[in-house]
């Protein structure tokens, strides 16, 4: 057999098997020992002896691992393995034991993965979504699944440590510890008296009052019990506190763990999303695309993306060539528009503030009107979250940023609006509870909080969060039923120009993700006061998954503009961390600053360690941020080094040929 010599610039077919020291002609198989070469090959040979050395050093992976990772056909790999097995004269029992152990470990791992994938929730559905609608939409549903699991595990935590002991001890009839305090501050009887009309139950269900208020749902129900039986003593208040704190820490760890891989990759890529043409061309094809329609769609996506990037590049070149006066006009326009958008956001905040005050004042009303007043803050928040981003989009058109910057700016504004509007609601509640901060005046003089309006302020805050969660869910369903389905009916059945221009709904990922983050933040803020809220949220998110899936497949057309799935997942998790931070701040502030309501107080003097805990988590975060920046710098250094090596090689070859 002969080998064609590799002539430079030759059009001969490149034999990839040569690089692995194996001729594609099977008859040439010979036992090769050491460096002695018979053929005139000048490429490094596959080192037969290396697996044994590696095994002595590492003691983990045997030859099968190396073989799997060799890009050769199966027949060649089999031949190599046979040669290796023939070449093994003396193998110490320790080596063979290690190899056997590695093999059985891998078999165990494979069967374990198979077992786990059986349990993986909704994996077939997610695959279908990804194949039909792309990675961006799939990342939303993956995020939703993560939140479902997080909420469910949190609920199990709370149930195990607080709910179940409470139920057990309450049914056993454990004795109450005498609580000290002023007489008037102890009055708390939310049970409705007399005959209750039937539809009141429904109203109570929606607003968390009446029969729902004095139940396991809210803080007020958990007695200040300390059970001491013959052998066991269980301090429920302490358990409640520890569970709440541990819940936050657990969520933080989960989110950071999930950010781990995504963060590493984002740091390693380093370069911006625009202009990474080789990345787009080499990596963007999705081989899981099934069917002609999905393929054509993906091709259209890629075409669009390439065109947009090329266009952005030429825009940048043009922008750099602007004259000075044009630049001044553009920048002043942008600054003005920034102020306008801030003005809109502040107007929304003021609206929420006014609505919350009004709602608290009118909180005694009965019937449907009373329900409307109860839900007024939620309504205003939702309206603000809907209207302000629309206006901001119009503003962005005037600002004329490049397309990618526009998306980022819009997202940041929406995040700001959503999370801080929640903060405004909480701020107004706090003002009402503590008589505007002056805790020793007026109605707050007796108990250091407004005990007339709020006999148990913790339950009240829990009720607000409960209402927010429920309302958010109902609005989602309503939009689905009243907007998306009719829109599809109109577009499909009415073939005039207007309908075609409006077109089918597009599944907008950022807006939906922000909705999820908002919902989760509400749950975190309310978890301390409404322990069953994670369970309610789990059910809400599960139902949301199915509803969104239905609307995706029936009503939506796939989006033209693509969305980078891994960097966007990282961004979703960062925004989720902001929400967690807000929840933590609320919890710490309410535990340490506002005096707990006397009747239902569970925490007397056990909140001193929350501040050190918060400081510790800040330190840990700073450490990780520092680590990430160090890695980023070393990646940049190494990349520069590769460039320099390339230039050296060029220089040397140029020098050698001259």
């Amino acid at each position, binding site marked *: 057999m002969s080998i064609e010599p590799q002539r430079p610039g030759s059009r001969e077919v*490149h034999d990839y098997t040569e690089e692995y020291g194996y001729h594609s002609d099977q008859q040439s198989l010979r036992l090769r020992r050491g460096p002695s070469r018979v053929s005139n090959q000048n490429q490094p040979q596959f080192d037969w002896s290396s697996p044994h050395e590696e095994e002595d050093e590492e003691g983990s992976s045997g030859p099968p691992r190396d073989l799997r990772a060799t890009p050769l056909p199966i027949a060649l*790999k089999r031949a190599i*393995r046979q040669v290796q097995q023939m070449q093994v004269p003396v193998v110490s029992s320790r080596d063979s034991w290690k190899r056997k152990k590695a093999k059985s470990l891998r078999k165990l791992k494979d069967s374990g993965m198979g077992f786990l994938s059986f349990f993986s929730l909704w994996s077939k559905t997610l695959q279908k979504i990804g194949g039909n609608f792309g*990675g961006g939409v799939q990342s939303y549903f993956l995020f939703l699944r993560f939140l479902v699991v997080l909420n469910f595990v949190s609920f199990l935590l709370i149930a195990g440590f607080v709910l179940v002991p409470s139920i057990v001890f309450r049914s056993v009839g454990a004795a109450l510890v005498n609580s000290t305090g002023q007489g008037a501050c102890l009055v708390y009887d939310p049970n409705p008296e007399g005959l209750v009309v039937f539809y009141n139950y429904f109203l109570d269900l929606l607003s968390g009052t009446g029969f729902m208020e004095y139940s396991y749902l809210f803080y007020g129900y958990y007695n200040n019990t300390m059970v001491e039986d013959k052998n066991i003593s269980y301090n429920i208040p302490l358990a409640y506190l520890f569970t709440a704190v541990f819940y936050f820490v657990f969520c933080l760890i989960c989110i950071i763990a999930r950010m781990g891989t995504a963060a590493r990759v984002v740091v390693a890529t380093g370069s911006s999303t625009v202009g990474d043409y080789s990345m787009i061309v080499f990596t963007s094809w999705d081989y899981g695309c099934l069917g*002609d329609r999905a393929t054509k769609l993906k091709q259209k996506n*890629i*075409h669009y993306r390439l065109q947009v990037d090329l266009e952005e590049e030429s825009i940048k070149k043009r922008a750099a060539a602007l004259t000075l006066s044009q630049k001044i006009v553009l920048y002043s326009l942008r600054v003005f528009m920034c102020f306008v958008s801030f003005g809109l956001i502040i107007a929304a905040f003021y609206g929420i503030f006014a609505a919350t005050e009004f709602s608290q004042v009118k909180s005694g009303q009965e019937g449907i009107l009373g329900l409307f007043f109860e839900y007024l803050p939620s309504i205003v928040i939702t309206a603000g979250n809907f209207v302000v981003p629309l206006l901001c989009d119009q503003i962005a058109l005037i600002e004329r940023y490049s397309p990618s910057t526009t998306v980022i700016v819009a997202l940041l504004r929406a995040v700001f609006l959503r999370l801080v509007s929640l903060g405004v609601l909480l701020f107004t509640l706090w003002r009402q509870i503590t008589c505007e901060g002056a805790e020793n005046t007026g109605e707050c003089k007796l108990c250091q909080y407004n005990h007339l309006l709020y006999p148990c302020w913790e339950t009240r805050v829990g009720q607000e969060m409960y209402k927010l969660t429920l309302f958010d869910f109902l609005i989602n369903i309503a939009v689905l039923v009243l907007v998306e389905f009719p829109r599809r009916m109109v577009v499909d059945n009415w073939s005039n120009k207007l309908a075609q221009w409006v077109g089918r709904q597009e599944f907008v990922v950022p807006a939906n993700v922000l909705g999820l983050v908002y919902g989760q933040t509400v749950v975190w803020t309310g978890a301390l006061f409404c322990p069953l809220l994670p369970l309610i949220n789990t059910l809400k998110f599960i139902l949301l998954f199915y509803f969104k899936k239905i609307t995706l497949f029936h009503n939506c057309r796939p989006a033209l503009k693509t969305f980078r799935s891994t960097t966007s997942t990282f961004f979703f998790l960062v925004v989720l961390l902001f929400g967690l931070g807000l929840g933590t701040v609320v919890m710490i502030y309410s535990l340490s600053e506002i005096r707990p309501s006397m009747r239902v107080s569970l925490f007397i003097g056990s909140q001193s360690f929350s501040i050190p805990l918060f400081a510790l988590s800040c330190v840990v975060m700073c450490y990780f941020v520092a680590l990430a920046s160090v890695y980023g710098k070393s990646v940049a250094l190494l990349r520069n080094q590769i460039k320099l090596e390339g*230039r050296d090689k060029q220089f040397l070859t140029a020098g050698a040929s001259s």
Partner: protein
Amino acid sequence: MGTTASQLGKDMLSEYQELTFLTKQEILLAHKRFTELLTKDEKDLPNTRVPMERILTLPELKSNPFRKRICNVFSTSEYKDGGLTFEDFLDLLSAFSDSATLEIKSHYAFRIFDFDDDGTLDCRDLEKLVNCLTGETDDTRLTPEEMRQLINNILEESDIDKDGTVNLSEFQHVISRSPDFVSSFKIVL
């Protein structure tokens, strides 16, 4: 040394598990799908090579723009006609499986994109690659100026030693920066 009748032997199965990245269920499913492609006579013969046209009727490959290149790369046929035996088919699925390493995937991706099989990606290969990605019809292609600009940008970004082509290690360097590649270079039956 090959697979014959409708049942896959236990020792063959464990051998395939060791030589590829596929799990037992995946290998059995692949065997089932492969035998569905065989005619009645072919089912009894050992090591039958299924011609490319029949392989391309598989729904997972039918609309893939790289289907012909994939068959050519994994085929061990002497006539370079893209026909696949069962073991070639397993090689294909192993490279496209969930657990295959980045090195394997990037190696095979490079070979798939190397349209003229000369070991490097030059301008012609890149142009064919981009046309596959955007669609072959006239209204889906990029304009010649856009194509020229794009290829220049690609070479500027990835051709580190400035020889006008992208070789395997430069390609693997670009791929290693992509977070989505491993999850998108996947074909699951």
